[in-house]
């Protein structure tokens, strides 16, 4: 009998929670819609007041009184410096600082709207404030642009959170009690044994949920809860849960020991991966996060746009332009980046290791320690330092070029030189790893083989190719593959040194995914991009594992 009760109570609770959540969601949507309307009205009024010169821009922040509680109004005029100064609100001499994510939103908004305004004015259209409402997660932003004679056009932003709706307790309670009554009736008059009872309960439950759902309109939540309750009741009735419980008890220490780590991993690693996959099937952006997932669903469209766009170049006025945003261009850059870096890293590392491995070399330990330094320094510091070294105006490298009587190079203006800057930085920070690995491998090579080779009269070059390289290859191969994967994913160097300049030409896949997701707020598209990257890495891993297996069987 206990089983029956457990199944029943859990199923009911599930339905209750599902229904309540759905109800709350509906109420919130309503509140958001209402607030958006209010915010729109206020933004429009403020914008036209500013446009007609009735209110100064700076006065807006003090006009809190007219706004609904929890709302605030901001005015931002276009132009980078003004926006920054006004956002700072500390007056004109406030030091520039990094924009917060919210501010960056306004910044982008002000730019976009002001540009549109300016175009309208140029084309002679009468300028009217137009409203642009963004309802983020529980947050409203209404933005209305205004034209202004002095200080350029700007935008009024009214934003805030609507008051949280209270739980519609009565309706949920009604649903709950309806289900309860049905359950008691059925529990009392169902004749068969326990298992059958649980199944019957689940059936009844699904039915009740469906009826209730059709009344309240909140069918998705109820349906999910009903299916969940049904499955649970089935599991309990068939003894599956009991079986699992027995296994759990038998290995209780092991499971208890593993569960915290597994939980953390699931929550912050596997779930994001799964959620990323779900996002990749939607057109989610920052602005429609609050919409139900189904409304955002757009199937494989993101993948189609990423993988199906083969237009790497455009012909324009007799010139061929490269679309730097194209996936295949970025993929090509990434592969070139990986290949050149690994080649340089292996050659430098192996060369240094060969030198350090010379028998009887004085100070070999000291050399090795000094050469390890680039590895010891955090790589973002290395990257930022190289960014400074390549500074076109004051950087040390251009100073050295000029000291040698050469022209300074504007490093970040062409693809080739910009690529070179990141390459130099990455080569610098990656050679110590290959050096250490090669040195370890070289030290394991049997010295007697060289003696024999020397007696045969083989040259040093010949010894390297015939003895050293075959001997160290097995030890080196995994490290080379590892460094290839590292380079493929080397976000910091590209992001901080070339920063994708010029115009995203030197972006690699992983920095491109960052741009889409974090800078352009296109979460769905960025997620799809990331899944593609993950697929490529997986493919690489599989090919590598296959090759490893083949090498093993060949041996």
């Amino acid at each position, binding site marked *: 009998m206990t089983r029956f009760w457990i199944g029943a109570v859990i199923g009911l609770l599930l339905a209750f929670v599902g229904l309540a959540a759905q109800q709350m969601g509906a109420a919130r949507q309503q509140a958001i819609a209402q607030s958006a309307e209010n915010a729109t009205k206020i933004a429009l009024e403020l914008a036209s007041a500013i446009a007609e010169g009735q209110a100064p821009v700076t006065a807006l922040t003090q006009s809190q009184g007219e706004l609904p509680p929890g709302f605030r109004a901001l005015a931002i005029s276009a132009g980078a410096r003004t926006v920054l100064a006004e956002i700072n609100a500390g007056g004109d001499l406030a030091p520039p600082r*990094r924009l917060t994510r919210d501010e960056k939103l306004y910044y982008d908004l002000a730019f976009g709207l002001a540009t549109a305004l300016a175009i309208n004015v140029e084309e002679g259209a009468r300028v009217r404030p137009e409203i642009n409402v963004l309802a983020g*997660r529980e947050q409203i932003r209404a933005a209305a642009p205004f034209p202004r004679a002095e200080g350029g056009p700007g935008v009024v932003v009214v934003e805030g959170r609507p008051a949280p709706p209270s739980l519609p307790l009565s309706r949920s309670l009604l649903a709950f009690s309806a289900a309860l009554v049905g359950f008691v009736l059925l529990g009392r008059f169902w004749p068969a044994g326990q298992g059958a009872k649980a199944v019957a309960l689940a059936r009844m439950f699904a039915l009740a949920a469906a009826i209730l759902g059709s009344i309240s309109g909140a069918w998705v939540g109820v349906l999910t809860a009903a299916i969940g309750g049904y499955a649970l009741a089935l599991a309990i009735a068939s003894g599956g849960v009991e079986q699992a419980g027995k296994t759990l008890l038998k*290995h209780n*220490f*092991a*499971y208890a*020991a*593993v569960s*915290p*780590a597994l939980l*953390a*991993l699931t929550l*912050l*690693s*596997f779930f*994001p*991966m799964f*959620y*990323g996959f779900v996002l990749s099937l939607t057109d989610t952006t920052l602005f429609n*996060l609050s919409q139900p997932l189904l409304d955002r669903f757009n199937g494989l469209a993101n993948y189609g746009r990423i993988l199906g766009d083969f237009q790497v170049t455009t012909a324009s006025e007799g010139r061929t332009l490269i679309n730097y945003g194209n996936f295949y261009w970025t993929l090509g850059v990434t592969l070139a980046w990986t290949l050149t870096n690994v080649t340089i890293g292996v050659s430098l590392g192996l060369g240094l290791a060969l*030198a350090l491995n*010379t028998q*009887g*070399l*004085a100070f070999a330990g000291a*050399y090795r320690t*000094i050469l*390890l330094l*680039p590895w*010891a*320094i*955090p790589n*973002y*510091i290395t990257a*930022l*330092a190289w960014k400074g*070294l390549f500074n076109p105006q*004051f*950087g040390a490298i251009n*100073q*050295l070029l000029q*000291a040698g*009587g050469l022209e300074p190079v504007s490093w970040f203006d062409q693809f080739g030189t910009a690529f070179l800057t990141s390459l130099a930085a990455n080569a*610098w920070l990656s050679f110590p790893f290959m050096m*250490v*690995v090669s040195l370890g491998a070289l030290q394991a090579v049997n010295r007697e083989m060289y003696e024999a080779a020397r007696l045969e009269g083989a040259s040093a070059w010949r010894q390297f190719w015939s003895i050293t390289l075959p001997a160290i290859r097995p030890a080196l191969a995994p490290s080379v593959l590892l460094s290839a994967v590292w380079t493929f*994913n080397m*976000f910091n160097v590209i992001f*901080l040194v070339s920063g994708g300049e010029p115009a995203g030409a030197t972006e690699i896949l*992983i920095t491109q*995914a*960052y741009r889409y997701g*974090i800078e352009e707020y296109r*979460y769905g598209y*960025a*997620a799809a991009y*990331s899944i593609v990257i993950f697929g490529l*890495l*997986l493919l690489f*891993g599989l090919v590598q594992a296959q090759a490893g297996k083949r090498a093993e069987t060949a041996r």
Partner: protein
Amino acid sequence: MNFSKHWPIHLGLIAFIGLAMYPILWVVALAFSGSQDLTLANLPADPTQGDHLAAALPFPERWSLANFSGLMRDLPFLQWMGNSLIVSGLTTLAGIVIACPAAYAFSRFRFPGQRAGLFLFLVSQMYPVVVMLAPLYVIVSEWLRLGDSLWGLMLVYAATAAPFCVWMLKGYFDTIPIEIEESAIMDGVSRPRIFWEIVLPLARPAIAVTALFSFMTAWNEFILAAIFLENQDKYTAPVGLRFLVSDYTADWGYFAAGSILVSLPVAALFFALQKNLV
């Protein structure tokens, strides 16, 4: 010592070291130059080749500690370092606390799901965190509401550090002879007590190395911190240093001084641990 015998090798190595050390010397020179300029000497309006050379040679015109004191006085640099210390310390602690028992269970017991679990821990190491940025950002800042908080960062770091810790520690636990535990079981000691009183003390060196590695990783992490942290007083040292030389500011002197202060402890750790690296 026979220096003259291998002189071409010495010459080559010294030349390469000179080249490779240049960026480091340059940063050190910037740090002690006492100014925020990228050039190490004043460039006149119409510079000669000699002026250019002086601007690039890693010796400042005058030596000064102004950048270090300015960093402490004018910027919340100490707070950034403190934030880094808190986040890295808590991450290490959390990582070790959840990884030790898991690694022990994976090493000692055969239970349903053991192999699958280990495999999962390996898989999560295979994809870079950057690939999960968008979903992770939505989860941490929109769902958990830990967007601009050191706690959120700590959670994410700990979750990414845990698999590494589990694998490292499992490897070590595997080398501890099982006979010790078997005799303890004979004596009727319970599993948790064996783990706590016998295995953990034995594994202390491995735990220390693992902890230091995860501390270093968290201390050096830049991109997640840059995404999650928004307020200046919440920055960790990497975000702060990046902020000093971003698009809007170019305080190269402060950056160089800060880089040295941030790098010294990890570089020292690195050299202490380098035998365990490969």
